[in-house]
């Protein structure tokens, strides 16, 4: 398929559908769909797709959209859905179930500010609230990444070493509604890339089992440990999926994190999503001006690529973390995880958190410049910095 100019939503919806269709020779595909701005286009795209063996169930809520995906997955079908913001919040109970049931469901989420008050613009707070569930999470910086990670997500999720659901996130409007040149997968490529789904614990009449009965503490501990071990296998499995992806599609979907000028950097920015691409421009400019700044763009939030992050910051003395999200009373979520990655290993490192583009505020190169300026002037980390506020309004 030639490169097309499509929105992030189009790319996601189309890729979900093609991936589902690729399971037509096995047990087919199911998808529960429910609209919410700004992801609605995704489910519209899926609903319009002429599946050979697939059922799109137009349900009454996000909760049921995931419910259908759970049922379909338990039946052995490739299952997926999409949502955003409060829709995800309403879906949370079943999102959890998909993870605990180890179902390889893929969900595309368009990051939108949680309400009320109502705000439809980009903010990662919605998907980051799911951070403690057994879900793999990816954050995309452009439509091509949305396409590629969505495709890769199925192969990764359905890997028998993994069997975890995958969330692929993109910023509202900035990606979801922005037309961009994108190399979309052909059905033939998808068929080649995705093996038929065989869920080992799918519900079968010839082997009646109960999924989700009571578990005693010992069995619960075992199940949690098993999830944890699957999470630990993700980086290696991801790399394999990435290699195969390159073979089939002829391009690299990227590593768990990308580094940019980090090798000798004394100051490193950590960012994700579209903020990371804007930051990259600033870093490029400042490097040209001789500043030893670098950038880490994290693609995979769960499991958090701690070791790769530590490696990327080996030369750094200061790290600034850009968060387009807010965890109450703490600051940014990415900031917390970054601090945790260095805790006890690089206690000399100054790690400062910056809240940028909250509620969909436009993150400009100037925003990143302000961050770097603040970071450069610091000799100790403080509370989260509300970058978009005038300095006199910021509560330290």
């Amino acid at each position, binding site marked *: 398929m030639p490169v097309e100019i499509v929105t992030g939503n189009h790319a996601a919806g189309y890729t979900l559908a093609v991936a589902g269709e690729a399971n037509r020779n096995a047990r087919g595909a199911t998808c529960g769909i429910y609209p919410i701005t700004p992801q609605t286009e995704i489910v519209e795209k899926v609903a319009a797709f002429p599946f050979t063996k697939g059922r799109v169930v137009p349900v009454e809520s996000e909760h049921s959209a995931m419910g259908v995906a759970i049922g379909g997955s338990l039946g052995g079908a490739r299952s997926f859905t999409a949502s955003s913001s409060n829709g995800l919040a309403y879906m949370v109970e079943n999102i959890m179930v998909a993870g605990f049931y*180890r179902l390889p469901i893929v969900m595309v989420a368009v990051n939108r500010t949680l309400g009320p008050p109502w705000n439809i613009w980009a903010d990662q707070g919605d998907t980051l609230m799911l951070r403690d569930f057994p879900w793999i999470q990816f954050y995309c910086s452009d439509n091509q990444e949305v396409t590629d990670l969505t495709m890769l997500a199925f192969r990764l999720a359905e890997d028998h070493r993994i*069997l975890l659901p995958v969330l692929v996130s993109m910023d509202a409007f900035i990606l979801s509604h922005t037309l961009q040149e994108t190399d979309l997968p052909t059905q033939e490529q998808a068929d080649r890339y995705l093996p038929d789904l065989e869920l*080992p*614990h799918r519900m079968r009449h010839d*082997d*009646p*089992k*109960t*999924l989700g*009965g*009571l578990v005693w*503490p*010992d*069995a619960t*501990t*075992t*199940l949690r*440990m*098993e999830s944890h071990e699957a999470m630990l296998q993700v980086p290696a499995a991801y790399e394999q999926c990435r290699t195969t992806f390159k073979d089939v599609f002829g391009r690299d979907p990227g590593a768990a994190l990308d580094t940019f000028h980090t090798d000798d950097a004394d100051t490193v920015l950590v960012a994700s999503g579209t903020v990371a691409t804007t930051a990259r421009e600033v870093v490029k400019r400042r490097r040209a001006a001789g500043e030893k700044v670098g950038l880490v763009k994290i693609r995979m939030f769960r499991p958090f690529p701690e070791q790769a992050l530590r490696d990327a910051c080996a030369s750094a003395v200061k790290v600034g973390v850009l968060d387009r999200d807010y965890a109450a009373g703490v600051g940014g979520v990415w900031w917390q995880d970054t601090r945790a990655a260095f805790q006890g290993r690089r206690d000399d490192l100054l790690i400062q958190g910056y809240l940028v583009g909250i509620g969909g505020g436009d993150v400009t190169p100037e925003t990143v410049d302000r961050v770097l300026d603040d970071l450069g002037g610091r000799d100790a980390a403080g509370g989260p910095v509300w970058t978009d506020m005038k300095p006199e309004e910021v509560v330290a």
Partner: protein
Amino acid sequence: MVEIRIHGRGGQGGVTLAKLIATSRFLRGMSVQAFGLYAAERSGAPVQAFCRFDDDTIVNRNLIYEPDHVVVLDPTLIGPAIVGGLKPGGWILLNVPEDPERFASEYPANLVATVDATAIAREHGLGTRSVPIVNTALAGAVARILDFPLEEVVEAVRHLGFSDANVAAATDAYNAVATKKPVSVPTPSDNGSARPGAVQPTLTFLEGGGGSLPLVKTGQWASEQPARQQYVPPCNHVCPAGNDVQGFLHALAEDRVDDALEILLRTTPFPSTCGRVCPAPCMASCNRIELDGAVNVRQLERYAGDRGNVSLVPAERRSQRIAIVGSGPAGLTAAYHLALFGYGVTVYEAGSQLGGLLRTGIPEFRLPHDILDMEIGRILDLGVETITGVFVKRERLLKLAQSHDAVLVATGLQELRGLNLGVADAEMVVQGIDFLDRVRSGDHDIRLDGEDVVVVGGGNTAMDAARSSLRLGAKSVRVVYRRTRNEMPAIAEEIDEALEEGVIMDFLTQPVAIERMAQADGDLGEHHIICRRMELGEPDDSGRRRPVEVPDSDYAVGCHRIILALGQSPDITVFPEGTEVHEGSELLGILETPVYAVGDLATNDGTVTAAIGSGRRAALHIHQTLTGEVLVEDGQARVRSDVDVWHDEVIKSDALRMHLFERQGVTEGAALEPERRRTTFDEIHAGLTDPSEAKRCLSCGVCNECDICITYCPEGVLKRVGHDLVFDYAYCKGCGICVTECPRNVVFMSQL
């Protein structure tokens, strides 16, 4: 700090007991904890609760592994597990009625106290019958053994808002506790440890787990368990022939006609006959009367007799020979059974045909010849020899006794009762029995056209004579009877049918004289019969109210013929002088051969069915006398082994769950119209066209495999294996639905 562990079952209130104990200490200013070990257990499952109290603030939050005392709410939980980790010298409080000494050997290292908290709870109406709530009672008992004043527990009970009944239960238990000191010096290791080990990795659903069978033996939850019992159905109890009425109805209900006949033939060779002429006391005693009318057992017996097909095979031929005098129902029944046992049987009959009163005394419209012939033929097919036309008198009887191994005399009632009516015209007064015999043997040649006939009596012979008279053309037939309809011995249906056909009945009427009227021109001699009005006085020996004459009440009824049907009495002149005739007992004084009198001759009962029963019992007696083999008479004997408890008592309707049965009217089968009947000796009843009427049988007190219990068993632990009902006690929780839902009361709960 004092730590108490409580073992109970879900629903008994173990956690609340912990709370009660804790509250009583809290109200004294102590630091307390009370908590349960929560899981998915439901009512009845073993559960644990814990209680701690101390003067200092309690800070640890883990479970109690080495309790100072344990309390056991349910007797069925008593075992080694309850003392796991229990400190030596601590109390074990058991909810049992037994004395604590009973547990001395089991728990030598501890103090044991017992109280029957269950009884106390039930007495005060706490909880349900199957799950009494024993916590408040046990709180009282705990106070007693731990030396708290009763008031402190009462205060705690009230503090938690419990009713006066709970206070009373606590008080009763406080006063009723029995205690025992340890029998040995306790050592710390006596009760082992209850602490858990480290978490072991377990199977997960990704590894294929989640499909294993449950491990919980829920039978341990039960405080009661169901078992099977059986009662005697009233129909079986009253059947003079000893038929297994319930049994053959059950077979018919399942459309197993041959099986039904086989069951009947175990006791009677005359199902087709009894199915027509039996007074059916089974129907009079049928519990279904309370619902919508008795099961039509008579017609169903006829159905089985007429339609069933059973081939009988006698036992191996025995050497002994038995003579039977009389071929009525008693004699032929005895012959039938004895032939089946393998004896050589010869029947002596004075008349020219076999059957006795069955043949001579019952008109064809009730019992057709071919039916009787068929049933007698079945007996003869067993190898019974018959000699007709021989009137056995005393000398002949003695000879028979010499030449046989046993003799059975079944000559029936040969003495006909007369009535002193003054100057009677021999021709116009006739005995009913003779009349019926003549009618029958004469192929209805005699005609009574234009006659007014009076029949005296209230039994079946009276009815048969009256109805035969109508059929022979009588202008009018009037039955006079000195009591009321209620006292009439005739089968109710026969009375009804006679009335339908136009027989007039004068009750409370006694004929006292006959006056001959002036001879009219016609051939018929007309008489006046003088009747006297009666009224009912005090009951006589038979329990019926004695008729008493009403003074000055005589009146005259014109008639041409009087038929007497006043009953018969036995002629025992065949026996040596002074022989006392009792049914079933061997008659002494006649050589060494056992001689028996059976049937009406011995019982004077007067019904075919009683004669059949008598004949069968006599056969059994003879067999027992000759072989020493004791045979159980009861048709129900086979099921006794299948039930847990056998009740010899007859089950009454109040022991059945009558509301579980749907109302459904009696099926009668077709009958000739009364108008048509008056002109023919054809059989009135056509019989049933199908056996569905048998489904109306409630099967009182006898399992008929309706499997309602299996249908409703929530656990699916009730199974039918063949004809047996099997309870899986390993899993039965003892809910009792099989008991409440059994419409016929054949499942009951037994306390464990």
